[in-house]
């Protein structure tokens, strides 16, 4: 049997980094093939070359035995290669059918297309209304739009980039069911992930990348997750350590918090209530777009609310702005590093001033003490092992992991009473992620209250004392994290979104 896709010696270099170095592997028809690696291992660049978005510097590909070198995505689609992106390539202000038409070479008339969408979505158990605006859909439903867009073209190879990072465990089950059905029909799937258990459950073969190089391949069902992890990371990682302790007095309390969305496609917060105690880590899970950004904005003071809705050590702070809250000890680190937690074009020194001015006394009657600010930035860089030539470097010049260490470190060094972080390890390599988690645990150990908002359930189970979930702007009742099963967590996250439409 000839392989569906043969990749030989693909190499792609960017200035200063070799994204892919002489990578070779092949995919059989109907095979579910995992591409495994950490952030920055070169998975994205590799699939972009297969999909025609990036041209390799060296190497060759063969599709179904014939030479394959797509000049653009259109050519890849024409050859039977389809891709579901990690950050969706969707248009919020357009409806489902329009979004799907944009991804097709010769879309049928709108009415016929809508009928086809309904048909395919029923066949594969992925309910979807063709005339809803994509901006109104949940993350799981948006992914269905992308998948159906691909399926309508009868692809021979379907590329899926980290598809489960936005799904609840129940939605993951549905997705896997669809993928197995496709595989049984002869469609090959290239499945990109860093989640080992998923790969063991789903995939027939795996290729493992590290720092742009292929470091191994295996049959995932036959090897242990630990073995794959070692290949992927190149060393064994320590699990964050902490001592057991009793939580202390309540430091932050949120009551009856309801907020209307600020943007047309935002999520409202609906009667959110919780409390965090000294020495405790509260984990808030949830699929993307269920109110995480909105909740962080309320806690940071970017969205002021009524004073009583948020209290810090018994004081009402809901109506205060970000700096007034910082002065009282409530600190935050938002999800988006570039443009929210840090200004991309400003130096690390200037970014240190962004949140550090009040608590570190970096100005005198409004005049900035740049020397002192630089010193603060250097302390953050030093304490949190931020790899950079110096504090004069622009924030956007740092890698994701290093900038994240800077952003989290900037807040931790200010000795917060309560620290709120959103997606602290998103897009961060494993060793930096472990360092960040350990720093958060140490902070709680020293008596601060820590709120971790994250979509990474493994992370939350690992570091939280109590766990709750955001679902369509509602927060579930927090429960002790220890002993919580994935099934229960999945139900807290809202189970499978939008499945009621299956009845249509």
């Amino acid at each position, binding site marked *: 049997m000839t392989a569906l896709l043969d990749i030989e010696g693909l190499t792609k270099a960017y200035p200063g980094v070799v994204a892919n170095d002489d990578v070779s592997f092949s995919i059989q028809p109907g095979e579910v093939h995992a591409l495994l690696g950490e952030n920055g291992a070169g998975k994205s660049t590799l699939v972009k070359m297969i999909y*025609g978005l990036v041209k390799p510097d060296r190497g060759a590909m063969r599709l179904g035995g014939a030479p394959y070198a797509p000049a653009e995505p259109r050519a890849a689609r024409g050859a039977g290669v389809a891709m579901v992106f990690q950050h969706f390539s969707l248009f919020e202000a357009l409806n489902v059918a329009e979004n799907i038409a944009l991804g097709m070479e010769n879309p049928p008339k709108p009415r016929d297309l809508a009928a086809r969408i309904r048909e395919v979505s029923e066949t594969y158990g992925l309910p979807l209304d063709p005339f809803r605006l994509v901006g109104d859909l949940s993350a799981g439903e948006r992914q269905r739009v992308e998948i159906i867009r691909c399926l309508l073209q009868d692809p021979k190879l379907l590329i899926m980039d980290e598809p489960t990072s936005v799904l609840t465990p129940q939605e993951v089950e549905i997705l896997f069911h669809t993928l197995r059905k496709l595989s049984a029909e002869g469609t090959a799937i290239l499945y990109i992930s860093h989640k080992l258990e998923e790969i063991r459950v789903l995939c027939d073969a795996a290729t493992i990348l590290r720092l742009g190089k292929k470091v191994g391949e295996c049959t995932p069902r036959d090897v242990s997750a630990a073995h794959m992890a070692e290949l992927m990371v190149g060393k064994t990682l320590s699990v964050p350590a902490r001592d057991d302790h009793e939580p202390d007095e309540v430091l932050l309390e949120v009551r009856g918090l309801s907020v209307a969305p600020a943007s047309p496609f935002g999520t409202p917060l609906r009667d959110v209530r919780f409390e965090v105690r000294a020495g405790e880590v509260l984990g808030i899970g949830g699929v993307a777009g269920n109110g995480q950004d909105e909740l962080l904005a309320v806690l940071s003071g970017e969205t002021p609310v009524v004073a009583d809705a948020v209290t810090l050590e018994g004081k009402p702070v809901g109506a205060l702005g970000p700096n007034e809250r910082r002065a009282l000890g409530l600190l935050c680190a938002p999800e988006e590093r570039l443009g929210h937690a840090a200004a991309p074009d400003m130096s690390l020194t200037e970014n240190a001033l962004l949140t550090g001015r009040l608590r570190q006394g970096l100005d005198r009657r409004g005049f*900035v003490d740049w020397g002192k600010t630089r010193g603060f930035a250097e302390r953050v860089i030093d304490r949190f092992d931020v790899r950079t030539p110096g504090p004069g470097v622009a924030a956007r010049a740092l890698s994701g992991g290093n900038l994240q260490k800077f952003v989290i470190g900037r807040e931790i060094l200010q000795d917060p009473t309560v620290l709120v972080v959103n997606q602290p390890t998103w897009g961060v390599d494993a060793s930096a992620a472990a360092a960040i988690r350990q720093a958060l645990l140490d902070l709680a150990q020293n008596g601060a209250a820590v709120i971790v908002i994250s979509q990474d359930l493994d992370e939350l189970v690992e570091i939280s004392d109590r766990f709750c979930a955001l679902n369509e702007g509602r927060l579930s009742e927090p429960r002790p994290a220890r002993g919580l099963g994935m099934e229960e967590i999945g139900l807290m996250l809202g189970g499978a979104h939008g499945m009621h439409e299956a009845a249509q």
Partner: protein
Amino acid sequence: MIALEKRAQPSRAWVVGGPVLAVVLTMLAGGLMFAALGTDPVEAIRIIFWDPLFSERFAAYSRPQLLVKAGPLILIAIGLSMGFKAGIWNIGAEGQYILGAICGAAFGLAFYPSESPLIFPGMVLAGIAGGVLWAMIPALLKVYARTNEILVSLLLVYVAEAMLASAATGWLRNPEGSGFPGSRNLARHAGTANLELIAGTGMHWGVLAAFIAVIAAYVVMTRHVLGYQIRLAGQAPRAARFGGVNPARLVILCLGVSGALAGAAGLFEVSGPAARISIDFNVGYGFTAIIVAFLGRLNPIGILLAGLLMALTFIGGELAQLMLGVPAPAIQAFQGMLLFFLLALDLMANYRIRLKREGMA
């Protein structure tokens, strides 16, 4: 195939060198334009850029004019630059300039013929108030009704021009002017005159104010938290809110400052060089100041130099008109070209150009 690659840090050499190169390229392109108009390009460029400062015939008259023309340009551009840095686009400085002139002149004329030394300071305050008032319209509409400040501030220029026409032909008209439009001469009346401070230099109160504004802006932008917040808001609005910057307050502040400076510039002009309120005393300084602000890279020192350069093109342009019969609008097109080249060269500060063997997406 040429590809662009974003630089990790803006190139310092290009940030400084860009404007200089833009001036050179403008001279070349402008030379072509003059050649097309049938004048000797080398002579035209020499008359515009050299003669006003160094020719024996004209320098005595032209040199003081440099400060007279640069003063209002710098004063207005300094105000605009703070807003532009913050992403707040006040492009209606011309309107604020007119309102400042009308309010300041009206204040002075209300006390005519008194020659009290308190009148001129009062006029300055009234001019500032007029500019601020006019700038507050787009500011408050942006804050409370989320209306686009670019359009509102610009449309208000036409409203201001209508008001200027009615002032010059009606309620501020010189009662002893035998019915001609235009107010009394403010520059020749002791109480209302914006005097030349050092004889023969063109240095009047407005030029002094421009220099003070340059220094103050430099200090605020580099050392003060406010300057930091302005830069932050312009570069990363979301990070600015996270950093505790109140966007509404910033809009009001930036438009207020630029309105105040434009209003003051209008008053200094109408009580000095222009001498009176007339239908067309405004010669587009409010618009040219936009070029000055960009040419100076929104940096106070850069604006000081850019203002002087732009003033030079005005004076040189008048000279070229006189000597070579170059049409007046040629100089306006010339200034526009300068801005184009500058914007085009901005690319080099932020991106690196690489030659590639092969094209890609």
